[in-house]
């Protein structure tokens, strides 16, 4: 716990005093529980949690970027599978990571419960009475008041009660002294902080149980309906009924994109603006409404939230096969490969005759011929688009039931078309078409459209998670900055040897936390009681400079 001394966490002496427990299952269980809930174990678990989180930033993670995981596995044929078995590509769901944080939270609960009980008692208890020798306290000041009006011990103590009340201390009276205490909000804050962390974890877990997320690609001009088969990928929580998604449709009217063309250097071509123009219809037979979505400005529809997370080009193709039949006409989304949107994509044409046809293509939005003769794109916007393609015939492999990526052509049972003894390639500007060799058909590049990649999410607990986090921050701040102090004031009559009676006023303070102003507080209190100059205040003589607590 953040500011608490260890003896509050598990009772005094548990850590240093490693005696063998009384045998028997109960004894062992108690011993294990004490170990687990000790501050030292909590600390080790915290550090272990930090170390365990690191591999997730070093290795690609399956839940974030499965493609990079596959690439890694292909590049590291010997170490990859072992890392996979150890959970290196799924760190945050791995048994060892879960073990660390679950143990940490068990330890946390084991600490919160007894401390809450203690604190509850402390909240209702009176401040402890003044110790006999106040001068032993870490902060101490005293003054001897000469006989006069208002300096009788009772009057001084009454003034002390008022002064302490003004400083928001809780007070209790004893014979000849006043005890006072403040800053219990520090421990309250500490407990709130830790309870909120537990609530945060529960909230996150519940969110992944009740929520879902999915990815969708929508090409300009197309309409998408919210139903399970229309998703490109869909990750439901365990309690989600995927057949019961809120009904709505959306049409992507246009996607406005702007790239940096003012500034040169490495900023040239950096994205500046993505703006999706949509028509959304909620429910069955709702009114279509015009909405815009952009990065940082998601769209809330039917309880879900939609985010614009990516964009790209979908070149429009018309393909006729060797028998003259049109086997494809429409946009095909391509995946951007670099900052200049050099994109690649695949056309699979299982209906083509005499043989199935596959086309692999690159799109270069701003086409130039580089000095080495190879074509490349030098700007992400479509200022001079060209498609460079090659074609394969044979068996696309779609019939054996195995799942295939729409962006990858399985060429294991296909042959590449050749022309003049070399693999066939063609470079097309919009509107141009090319006749494939061997009478395999023709391909026309009709034009270019854009597509928007959307994430659709439903997370019913996110506001609870946020509330828990805000509470945790408030509790943490209180636990770090509220000063926990105890102050005692004692007034003792001292006969001066004549007929007057002087009054010895003593003020002492004790703090459980870092508290550089405790001495000032004690001094100021004495000044208030002794009327400005309090006379000879002294610090405790037996305390060496630089001494530390504990």
């Amino acid at each position, binding site marked *: 716990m953040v500011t608490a001394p260890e003896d509050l966490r598990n009772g005094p002496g548990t850590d240093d005093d490693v005696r063998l427990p009384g045998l028997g299952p109960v004894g062992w269980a108690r011993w294990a529980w004490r170990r687990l809930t000790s501050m030292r174990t909590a600390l080790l678990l915290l550090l272990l949690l930090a170390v365990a989180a690191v591999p997730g930033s070093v290795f690609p993670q399956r839940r974030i970027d499965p493609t990079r995981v596959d690439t890694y596995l292909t590049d590291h044929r010997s170490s990859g599978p072992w890392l996979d078995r150890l959970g290196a590509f799924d760190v945050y769901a791995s048994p060892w990571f879960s073990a660390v944080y679950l143990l940490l939270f068990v330890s946390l609960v084991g600490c919160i419960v007894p401390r809450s009980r203690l604190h509850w008692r402390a909240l209702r208890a009176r401040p402890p009475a003044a110790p006999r020798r106040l001068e032993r306290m870490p902060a101490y000041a005293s003054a001897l008041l000469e006989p006069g009006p208002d300096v009788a011990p009772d009057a001084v103590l009454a003034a002390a009660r008022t002064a302490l009340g003004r400083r928001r201390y809780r007070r209790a009276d004893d014979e000849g002294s006043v005890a006072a205490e403040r800053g219990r909000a520090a421990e309250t804050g500490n407990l709130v902080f830790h309870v909120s962390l537990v609530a945060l974890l529960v909230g996150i877990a519940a969110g992944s149980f009740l929520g879902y997320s999915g990815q969708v690609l929508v090409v300009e001009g197309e309409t998408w309906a919210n139903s399970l088969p229309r998703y490109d990928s869909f990750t439901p929580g365990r309690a989600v009924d995927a057949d019961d998604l809120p009904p709505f449709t959306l049409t992507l009217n246009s996607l406005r994109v702007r790239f940096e063309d003012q500034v040169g250097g490495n900023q040239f071509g950096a994205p500046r603006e993505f703006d999706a123009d949509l028509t959304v219809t909620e429910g069955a037979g709702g009114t279509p409404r015009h909405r815009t979505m952009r990065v940082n400005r998601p769209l809330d529809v039917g309880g879900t939230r939609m985010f614009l997370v990516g964009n790209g080009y979908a070149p429009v193709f018309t393909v006729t096969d060797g028998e003259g039949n049109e086997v494809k006409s429409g946009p095909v989304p391509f995946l951007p490969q670099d900052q200049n949107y050099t994109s690649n994509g695949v056309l699979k044409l299982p209906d083509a005759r005499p043989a199935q046809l596959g086309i692999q293509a690159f799109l270069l939005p701003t086409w130039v011929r580089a000095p080495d003769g190879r074509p490349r794109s030098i700007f992400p916007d479509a200022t001079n688009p060209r498609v460079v393609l090659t074609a394969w015939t044979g068996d696309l492999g779609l019939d054996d039931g195995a799942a295939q990526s729409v962006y990858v052509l399985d060429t294991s049972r296909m042959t590449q078309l050749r022309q003049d003894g070399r693999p066939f390639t063609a470079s097309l500007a919009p509107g141009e078409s090319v006749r494939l060799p061997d009478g395999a058909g023709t391909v026309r590049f009709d034009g270019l459209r854009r597509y928007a990649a959307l994430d659709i999410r439903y997370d019913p607990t996110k506001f609870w998670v946020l509330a828990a986090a805000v509470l945790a921050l408030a509790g943490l701040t209180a636990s770090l900055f509220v000063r926990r102090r105890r102050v005692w004031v004692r007034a003792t009559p001292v006969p001066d040897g004549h007929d007057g009676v002087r009054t010895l006023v003593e003020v002492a303070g004790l703090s459980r936390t870092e508290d*550089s102003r405790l001495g000032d507080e004690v001094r100021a209190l004495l000044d208030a009681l002794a009327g400005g100059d309090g006379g000879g205040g*002294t610090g405790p003589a037996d305390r060496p400079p630089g001494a530390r607590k504990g």
Partner: protein
Amino acid sequence: MTTVVVDEQMAQASNVLIYSAMLVYTGALAAFATDLSGRGRVAAAAPDEAHEGLRARELVAAGGASVGAAGAGAGGAGSVGSAGAGSGGGAEGGDGEAPVVRRQAAGIAVSLTWLAFGLHLAGVVARGLSAHRPPWGNMYEFTISGAVVVTGVFLLVLLRNDLRYLGTFVVGPVLLSLGLAITVLYTQSAQLLPALQSVWLVIHVTVAFTASALFTIAFSATVLQLVQDRRERLRAAGRPPRRGRFMDALPVAAELERTAYRLTAVAFPLWTFTVMAGAIWAERSWGRYWNWDPKEVWSFVIWVVYAGYLHARATRGWDGRRAAYLGLAGFACVIFNFAVVNIFFPGLHAYSGVG
């Protein structure tokens, strides 16, 4: 949709201001170092005075000025920092026989730092004005803006506590990072990526800067604490250290430790807020408030390590030096998160503009 043109002249002015600030920082660094060496003090305390004796007399002097020093901290008493604060933050307060010793060099150093801060801040503002947006859209801008916050926070702390002995160890890193920024990380002024166009950029990044600045200053104090601690142990073992006499002018290890703790205690909730604000922004921008992106992983690691540091201080056997090592580890993570993760780790936070 408005196309905003970058103001080239303003960007040039920003560069000139940053160079000027670096020049003045160099002067400030030299002055701080002179002060540490003891040369800048008009009448320095007798150098061969036994260390503990010196401290003991400071205690008396401080105690005379204010009872506060006697009860400072949780039992720790009579330290340079608290004595200075106790006597109203007097510039020359709490330095042994206070009225005699005048730290001229330190005074000059602080004035130069204020001047450099002004130039530096103007340079950062000009950079922002040149592109009509907050000046932290890429790694170069992160670095110059982060550095100006480090200086600013240090100067603010100086207003209340006499931590001038830390000057060398704050201005030095600031100068170093400015040098790196202008040579390695320099990126032309331009507009923001769409993902950065949000009010959360201002909130999230400003607080992250402030927390990192406090972590930086706390780190300097922790390094000095460990050096001082080693010297104290050598002395206790009867082998007084021969080198690094300037350390004698610094507070004792326990006081340095408390300084580091106080700075970290302020930085930690700010870092907590940084992570929370980042999560809120991530939810608006990417749809998930927590995605285990490398930047998020390392922000989490930093949070956990500093949480460990705060717990360690309250754990028997882990306080003092071991907690200090945790503090160092925490700061190493801060630097790693800034320097390595931004540039070399692929992820959603790839805004460095480098390369």
